[in-house]
């Protein structure tokens, strides 16, 4: 089965939003559903692209339509990173969801990686949702920002420059080639996965990459999962998978095991396994 990749641009008030649609065209039957893959933040997005595409291909081969897109001010979408705001990104996700539904899809399968998990969880709450898959989710937006800011400190260690890092808060801070606006940082710091997931009523998968031989979830993940109330329909699948932290490895790496486990979860949630 040949997967067809169709690039498209959605018109938004901020300009054009780049989207890549993957599917196996079949005149006999429509797609089993649509998966929207919400990308990670800044450099993590670049490094994880290959695994995200691999997932889109695998889902397409399983009869789904998969949508990859770039948030405003990132990748091939219009806008500058410096001008990106949380409100824009929320709207980007909503636009992609509208596009998915325009084709008659009922219930979106949301997949969010790292920071993208925070956006995907919010979108899942708002939209007609079939399942939510979190890949090494960022648990708090504040952590995403502090880890990103750390890149500036780390760059100084690596380059062995000994001047003190400039930690003063500026309206726009240059980090690893990204102009991070303080406004964006402040907005993102409000995001909390646990509170978003409180009213989760659909199948939820939480995947983490680990190097631990016993393949247990991180203490942080266990803590959040414990807080989720049991609700009808919310079947929770939590799994640690042995493999690379592909969103941050210097050499681009992929996790086929994660892609397969995700595809299995999606098809099982649909009862088409």
């Amino acid at each position: 089965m040949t997967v067809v990749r169709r690039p498209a641009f959605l018109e938004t008030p901020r300009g054009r939003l780049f989207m890549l649609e993957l599917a196996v065209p079949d005149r006999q039957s429509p797609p089993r559903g649509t998966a929207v893959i919400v990308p990670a933040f800044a450099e993590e997005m670049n490094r994880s692209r290959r695994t995200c595409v691999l997932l889109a291909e695998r889902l397409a081969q399983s009869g789904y339509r998969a949508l990859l897109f770039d948030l405003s001010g990132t990748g091939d979408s219009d806008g500058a990173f410096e001008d990106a705001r949380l409100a824009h990104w929320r709207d980007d996700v909503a636009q992609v969801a509208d596009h998915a539904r325009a084709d008659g899809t009922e219930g979106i399968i949301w997949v969010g990686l790292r920071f993208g998990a925070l956006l995907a969880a919010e979108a899942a709450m708002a939209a007609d949702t079939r399942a939510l898959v979190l890949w090494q989710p960022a648990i708090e937006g504040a952590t995403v920002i502090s880890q990103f800011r750390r890149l500036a400190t780390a760059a100084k260690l690596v380059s062995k420059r000994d001047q003190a890092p400039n930690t003063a808060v500026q309206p726009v801070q240059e980090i690893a080639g990204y102009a991070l606006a303080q406004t964006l940082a402040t907005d993102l710091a409000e995001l909390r996965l646990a509170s978003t997931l409180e009213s989760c009523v659909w199948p939820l998968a939480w995947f983490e990459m680990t190097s631990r031989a016993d393949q247990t979830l991180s203490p942080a993940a266990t803590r959040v999962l414990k807080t989720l109330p049991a609700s009808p329909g919310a079947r929770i699948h939590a799994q640690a998978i042995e493999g690379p932290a592909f969103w941050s490895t210097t050499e681009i790496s992929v996790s086929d095991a994660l892609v397969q486990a995700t595809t299995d979860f999606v098809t099982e949630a649909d009862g088409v396994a």
Partner: protein
Amino acid sequence: MLAETLSILDRVLSLGERAQHFTADTPLLGGVAEFDSMAVVAVITAIEEDYGIAVADDDVSAETFETVGSLARFIESKVDSSSDE
């Protein structure tokens, strides 16, 4: 702790088999080409997530990442001080 350190390095740097030939004396910063600023951040993040602890930026210096051994000692000190609390 050396084995756990190597396992974190392997996951973060995607070194494959190479990490298994590393010893405590293997230099990291300036010694391993893959060890860029993303890798430094990823190692700190992995330590925080794996052990459920917080690492302050002030605690981290170039010496921490000098060798595999210095990184292992750093992780040990962080894990020890968090379990004392």
